């Protein structure tokens, strides 16, 4: 009798899935997530795709809609090769930060995997997208799909009007600056709505219609050349220094045509959209992994998942969170799934079963008891860097056996500076947090000066931290791209962040085309 009851309470049996089972599993998992973890999610749209379509989605930066560009074709070839060689399995799912939240499920997945993926993506990632501060402030989940639709259509129309090569050239240059095309510290302007875009297009068309080439032939005003305003005023009027190179070029370049400006803007908006994702890898994956692990175990405890299915789920789970040591040939950096899950489970442990050390380090949360609340707050407020700085515990540092290696370029040796001991905890925590700080990791390059009335020479500054310079070939190539968008000479000065001394300067006039 009891056996009968437990059998009927199973969400699914066997490995085949159909839409009815998927739907029943989703409802059960969602109910549990809301009830037990207090998750708050966007409505979900699940799309079943084949492996080929998954590869397609990979190569267009994971978006369902994307404009066409050769670099996506190149990435596709690379992903395809890795997949075919078996070097890398495909993700079981792909999730898009949009409202409704789109989750792609692979058709090859078994039902157990589909349940795992539902908990992971449709609830874990979904909750994170909806509640994390960075996503809330910096991306507009409701507008992104319609914006991409607009972008794709706009670029197709540009290709028809101006030719593939011309559009490709602008995209190439804009892509080179994607890393420098985001606002790191102040909020980006909202994605414009349909109507505003319509208005913008009309304005551009009006400008094109009324364009008069004669104005270009007017002699330059003598007055303007003479009363060259003092530097500070000029910089102020252009809002300099400016860290968002794409934004600066889009607004101030003298050579870009209206449609080119719009393309630069499209690339910038997309770069901005992905910026929060890059800052929250550990948290995002950790949150999703924690959610799926917790929910699956709960379902198993309630007898809603069979032992066989649970075994399969656990096997996949442990593959995902596999973390080889640094000297293992399989080591390729720290696995964000593993680190995220460990930290979140550690928070759970600290709040329920704290040790004396935990009480010392985390007086706020040790023994607090309500780990759900602490995690919900952490998921909402933090990015990787601040999360690690706040919550990485000595116990976890010992478990992972972290150590810090100091690497100075001109020395033949690396030096171990800290290990997992009393003196090292703080330093390891700070070093690990810093390594997730995109702002500090990325080269800091800003527009510092340009004389729009004079030779229009665009001056960029690279603040050199810890003596880390730029790689020469790619720097020159990127400068060429900036010159193409700017239309006049561009120079990049490397300035030491501490001493303020100029280390060297590179101008496009020195670089052969």
């Amino acid at each position, binding site marked *: 009798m009891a056996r009968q009851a437990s059998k009927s309470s199973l969400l699914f049996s066997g490995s085949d899935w159909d*839409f009815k089972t998927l*739907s029943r599993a*989703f409802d059960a998992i969602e109910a549990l997530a809301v009830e037990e973890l207090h998750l708050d999610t966007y*409505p*979900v749209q*699940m799309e*079943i*795709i*084949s492996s080929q*379509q998954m590869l*397609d989605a990979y190569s267009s930066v994971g978006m369902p809609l994307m404009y066409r*560009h*050769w670099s*996506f*074709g*190149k990435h*596709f*070839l690379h992903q*395809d*090769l890795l997949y075919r060689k078996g070097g890398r399995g495909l993700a079981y799912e792909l999730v898009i930060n949009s409202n409704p939240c789109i989750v792609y499920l692979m*058709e090859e997945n078994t039902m157990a995997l589909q349940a795992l993926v539902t908990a992971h993506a449709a609830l874990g990632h979904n909750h994170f997208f909806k509640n994390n501060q960075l996503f809330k402030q910096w991306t507009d989940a409701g507008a992104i799909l319609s914006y991409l639709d607009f972008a794709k259509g706009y670029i197709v129309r540009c290709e028809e009007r101006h030719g593939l090569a011309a559009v*490709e050239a602008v995209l190439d240059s804009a892509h*080179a600056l994607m*890393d420098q095309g985001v606002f790191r510290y102040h909020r980006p302007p909202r994605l414009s709505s349909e109507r505003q875009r319509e208005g913008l297009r009309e304005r551009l068309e009006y400008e094109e219609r009324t364009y008069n080439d004669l104005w270009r032939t007017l002699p330059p005003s003598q007055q303007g050349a003479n009363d060259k305003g003092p530097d500070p005023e000029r910089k102020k009027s252009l809002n300099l220094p400016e860290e968002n190179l794409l934004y600066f070029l889009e607004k101030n370049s003298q050579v870009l045509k209206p449609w080119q400006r719009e393309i630069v803007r499209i690339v910038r908006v997309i770069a901005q959209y992905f910026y929060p994702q890059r800052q929250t890898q550990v948290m995002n994956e950790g949150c999703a992994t924690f959610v799926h692990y917790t929910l699956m175990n709960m379902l198993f405890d309630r007898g809603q998942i069979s032992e066989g299915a649970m075994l399969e789920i656990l096997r996949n789970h442990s593959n995902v969170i596999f973390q080889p*040591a*640094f*000297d*293992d040939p399989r*080591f390729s950096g*720290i696995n964000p799934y593993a680190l995220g899950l460990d930290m979140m489970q550690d928070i759970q442990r600290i709040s329920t079963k704290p040790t004396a050390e935990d009480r010392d380090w985390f007086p706020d949360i040790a023994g607090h008891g309500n780990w759900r609340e602490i995690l919900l707050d952490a998921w909402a407020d933090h990015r990787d860097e601040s999360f690690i700085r706040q919550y990485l515990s000595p116990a976890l540092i010992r478990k992972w*056996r*972290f*150590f*810090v*290696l100091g*690497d*100075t*370029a001109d020395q*033949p*040796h*690396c*030096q*171990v500076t800290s*290990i*997992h001991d009393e*003196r090292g905890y703080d330093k390891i925590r700070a070093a690990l947090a*810093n390594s997730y700080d995109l702002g500090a990791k990325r080269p800091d*390059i800003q527009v510092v000066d340009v004389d729009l009335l004079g030779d229009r020479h665009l001056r960029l500054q*690279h603040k050199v931290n*810890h*003596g*880390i*310079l*730029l790689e*020469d*070939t*790619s*720097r020159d*190539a990127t400068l060429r*791209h900036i010159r193409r968008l700017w239309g006049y000479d561009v120079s990049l000065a490397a300035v030491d962040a501490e001493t303020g001394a100029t280390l060297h300067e590179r101008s496009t006039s020195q670089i052969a085309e």
Partner: protein
Amino acid sequence: MPIFIDRRLNPKDKSLGNRQRFLRRAREELKRSIRDQIRTGRIADVDAEHAVPMPETGTAEPSFNNAWNSGKRQHILPGNKHFSPGDLIPKPGGGAGASSPGNTASEDDFRFVLSREEVLDLFFEDLELPDMVKLNLKEILAFKPRRAGFAATGSPTNINVGRTMRNSHGRRIALRRPKQEELDAILREIATFEEVPSSAATRQRIAALREELDRLERRRRRIAYVDPVDIRFNRFDPRPVPNANAVMFCLMDVSGSMGEREKDLAKRFFVLLHLFLKRRYDRIEIVFIRHTHLAQEVDEETFFYNTQSGGTVVSTALEEMHRIIDERYPVHEWNIYAAQASDGDNFAGDSERCIALLNDKLMRLCQYFAYVEIIDEREAHIFGTTENGTSLWRAYSAIDERWPNFQMSRIATPADIYPVFRQLFGRQPASLKRA
């Protein structure tokens, strides 16, 4: 309850456009690497997929990157087993950090596979069937009438009634041709006046009306309802229809004098030719003729893969070709091309017959005739560029001088095939020079 969408049946290859853009961008480099691969001896493999290295130029995606050989940085690594603070670890290799990404291979360093179609496309770029276009335009034989507006002259069967009546209507309005209704109205008025008892006034009135009626009728007769100037005809323009029917004759010597090597080289040449033709022209027929001392038409499979033994009489193949042209490919409907491969051996005295056949008959019929002679590698040094050689070569030299649409070339090694092929079928046949 989530929304489910089944996307599995959606069109695949969503990124095909991106792939095409990428291949176009890397075209030159891909072309070079495919030609290098094929030059190294596997011509029959052209018709397959090829793995090519990622091109270096044109596909880089630069951005500002930190140089891995400068400055001070920290690596945080898991899995410490025996290190203590202060331990020194020698850097591996070029001085980068223990696990820095600088050591890993760049993402661009890989090979990828081009499909058969893409390979052929790259491989046969710039090649054209000689004189095809030019002769088509010169020898337009078929015309097809096409509607082209209206004309004032033409045959009665082509009268355009609609146009004609429109003109007629306009003219009648412009010249104010009296309408039937006006005449009827006057007649009715006369009738009413005639019914009442006549008086001087009514008689006068009737006379005036009759006069008016008479005037109108005269006018009606003068202004025709449909005048010859109204008539319009449908105009037809004869448009030339390009006569793109083409037939390619492949002639090969399969006699005993052709060793395995020679046959192999000849076959490779024809395989290439065959692929090229199949690729470039949708409507082309290919006739395979092999000969020993007897010639016979065979199918593709037999031509390439079956062997036979016997003597060598080249003229039999030419005769067979002539017979087939007479039978199936009338010259005014078909563009005729021929390619012949042989080791140059021929039955004594037959070469003269070949010359006669070509001069008198075939060269007049053919748009283009290519002769490829397979020679020994050692002979290549001796004959290289001279006009001396086998009996067939000497015989054909005479034809070569006389007919501009005759080309001949020698092949000694597999590596020669592709250059010779390009030379024979290059885009500007006029500027070709023989090797």
